[in-house]
């Protein structure tokens, strides 16, 4: 059993729909689902006023499945706090996708907005397109970003990916903006493409692996070694990598791995390596 849902029209103002989660839908009848409350701007609406909703024979190993088709770019908080089941979205997802998610699986065949998986604690989000800023980040003022689970982005991400991250794994196969792993306190971030710099700024713990090019490195990182490969989650990624620690301005012990082959301009750092450390 599952639910198919698609927008009835293009929305011009934000639509808040925290109710679109397998947790909520799986306990309700279709007619109850149709009458769930959502907000379109400042107007209260019923789900059925904005969306076509029907039941369908969708199943997945994760359990109750919501199949979403269409442009949900204005629809915020899809999968908010979900703990089980699956959401498959063919189209564009709005901001705060999977925020505070605890379990289950969200798959997006398209782009997603900013704050994907922010403060998530478990589960898995996979986006085949691009995402915005603050992926896996914390809410304003809070030091508790993503604590567990996995976010996988096949496209690009923008700024401050993994801000205040404390655990879990973020993989971006494309490129990222500035300040990846800002204030990071734990967990792992892997970037397949290039970055706009300032990676690992003010991080204290955790691991950032960059396979592509970085424009420069913050002066507050120290080179430690050159490593042939590095572990990302369960997977081993082949290098070689320059391994830096920082951010020393925060007395940090974060590890920043940057591909050696794609960053010939970082060769100058090798002179700071004591011979013992070159392996």
């Amino acid at each position, binding site marked *: 059993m599952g639910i198919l849902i698609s927008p009835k029209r293009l929305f011009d103002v934000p639509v808040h729909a925290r109710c679109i989660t397998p947790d909520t839908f799986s306990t309700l009848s279709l007619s109850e689902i149709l009458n769930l409350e959502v907000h379109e701007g400042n107007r209260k609406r019923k789900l059925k006023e904005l969306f076509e909703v029907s039941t369908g024979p969708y199943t997945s190993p994760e359990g109750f499945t919501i199949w979403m088709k269409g442009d949900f770019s204005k629809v915020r908080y899809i999968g908010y706090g979900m703990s089980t089941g699956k959401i498959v979205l063919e189209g564009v997802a709005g901001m705060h996708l999977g925020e505070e998610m605890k379990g289950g699986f969200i798959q997006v065949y398209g782009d997603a907005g900013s704050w994907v998986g922010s403060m998530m604690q478990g589960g898995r989000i996979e986006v085949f397109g691009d995402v915005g800023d603050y992926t896996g980040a*914390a809410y304003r*003022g809070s030091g508790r970003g993503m604590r567990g689970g996995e976010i996988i982005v096949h496209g690009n991400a923008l700024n401050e990916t993994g801000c205040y991250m404390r655990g879990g794994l973020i993989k971006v196969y494309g490129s990222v903006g500035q300040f990846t792993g800002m204030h990071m306190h734990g967990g792992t971030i892997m970037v397949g493409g290039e970055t706009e710099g300032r990676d690992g700024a003010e991080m204290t713990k955790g691991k950032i692996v960059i396979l592509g090019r970085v424009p420069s490195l913050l002066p507050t990182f120290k080179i430690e070694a050159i490593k042939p490969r590095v572990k990302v989650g369960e997977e081993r990624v082949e290098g070689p990598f320059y391994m830096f620690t920082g951010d020393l301005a925060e007395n940090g012990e974060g590890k920043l791995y940057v591909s050696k082959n794609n960053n010939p301009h970082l060769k100058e750092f090798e002179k700071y390596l004591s011979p013992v450390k070159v392996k």
Partner: protein
Amino acid sequence: MALLIRNGYVYDPMNGIDGEKMDILVEGGKIVDKLKSAEYEVIDASGMIVMPGGVDIHSHIAGSEVNAGRLLRPEDHAKDVELKTEITRSGVGYSVPSTFTTGYRYAKMGYTTVMNPSMPPLEAKHTHEELCDTPIIDKATYPLLGDWWFVLEYLRDGKIEECALHVAWMLYATKGYAIKLVNPGGLEAWGFGRNVRDIDDPVPYFNVTPREIIRGLCKVNKLLHLPHTIHVHTNNLGKPGNYETTLQTMKCVEDLSSGDKPCIHITHCQFSAFKGVDWREFYSGAEDIAKYVNFHKHVTIDMGQVIFTDTTTMTADGPFQYILHELTGNKWVNHDVETETSSGIVPFRYRRRSYVHSIQWCIGLELALLIRDPWRIFLTTDHPNAGPFTSYPQVIGWLISRKAREETLSKLNKRARETALLPSIDREYSLYEVAIATRAGQARALGLKDKGHLGVGGDADIAIYDVDPRKIDPSTQYDEYVKAFSKAAYTIKEGEIVVRNGEVVKVLDGKTYWVKVSSNSEYEVSEDMKRRFTEYWTVQFDNYPVSEAYLKRSKPVQVESEV
């Protein structure tokens, strides 16, 4: 609207009424003995507790430091929001609620009068603007005067009467209610990143000691006949071993009391009752303090009870807040105010697992239970420093029930549980004593004659709680009381029903109390004073005072001074 509150169990300690079943009559916003009009609403309070509206002697609800705390903590607000209704404004809550939410939440607990204890005089307009947006409750605010340059200079030169006249002007200019001292002398020293060590350590560049400041302002308070005593946040607050400083502070004004009248209030005493040498060797000093208070009538104190939660600490004690930041690594706001005071803000979480926090929790309750006279120990959490004010019902639960305390104790840090004195204390507050510690005693200490009682002529500020003391035993069924005190069945403010079944049903504006001193020698601001003023502050003398237009409902309290 006239009211007849019928058949409630009335607790009115000022009039010696202890749970008697009786009717209370209200007309014209006052308690009356007979209703003039034939039309009145009847509230059936049978099986319920009727008390005067709650009075809070110390709660940071408005002004620059509270607002800086709000700004600092979006993550605190986002988890606790209030929706707009037909009659109430929306807002956010938890440890530093927005102004409207503050007013509603106090009213929902049956509180009708709240004192904001910390106001930098230079930013007094700000405090009053916020108080205007804090609905329902009556309020007042204490200007910070213990590090004010004029005070330091007058007291250094021994000019008590001049100082008194100046303080009188200051209360007028800031629309203040009482003299507040925070770490006297220490905040001036903090201007250069320093502090004072004890009450005899002179203030850098001013050649005056905290002892002289405390004694001086205590004398000033007496000369001016202010309704409340000096309100003191001690030196060395929050440091192990500071209970000795607290004892010295209380002792240093012993000779200034006359008769049984208190002359000093030590606020959030829990933070000033630490024994030991560091955070490892850290113990409760509550017993020593309680012993002193039990034998000396010139002191009143309030608890500053710790609640195990995530809260926001904020005080004018800049150096203490810096230490707290160093200790926790949490984000830190500091705001020094020229010529007057400082302040600091650090988010803080009290954890049951922590030995120190557990001991702190014990200290507050030990103070409340070891001090025998409930008229001199009041229930506070130093909102939001030791916990938000919305936890008062929980504290009441701990006071009325040993079982409630044991339940919390069982979850505390083991070492704390084993070393603390609290588990051996059997005392349980009666509801009569609760009424003293939460309203009557506080109103008396504040000199608010119309508050804290249900005698004829008093303000018709009344709280009705739906719990039957004849059927439900506080000691064992404390939960019922915690629930009832959290959501008043009725809150009546100036004769109007503002809360029903824990929901706000009517919004009105509370009054702002301030002290208007009339003196023999009319206080005039000399040209010399204006010149010094221009040198000391970056605002012009004319732009400094708060006009009465800043008070939505101004309630001056006239006092006749000796100077």
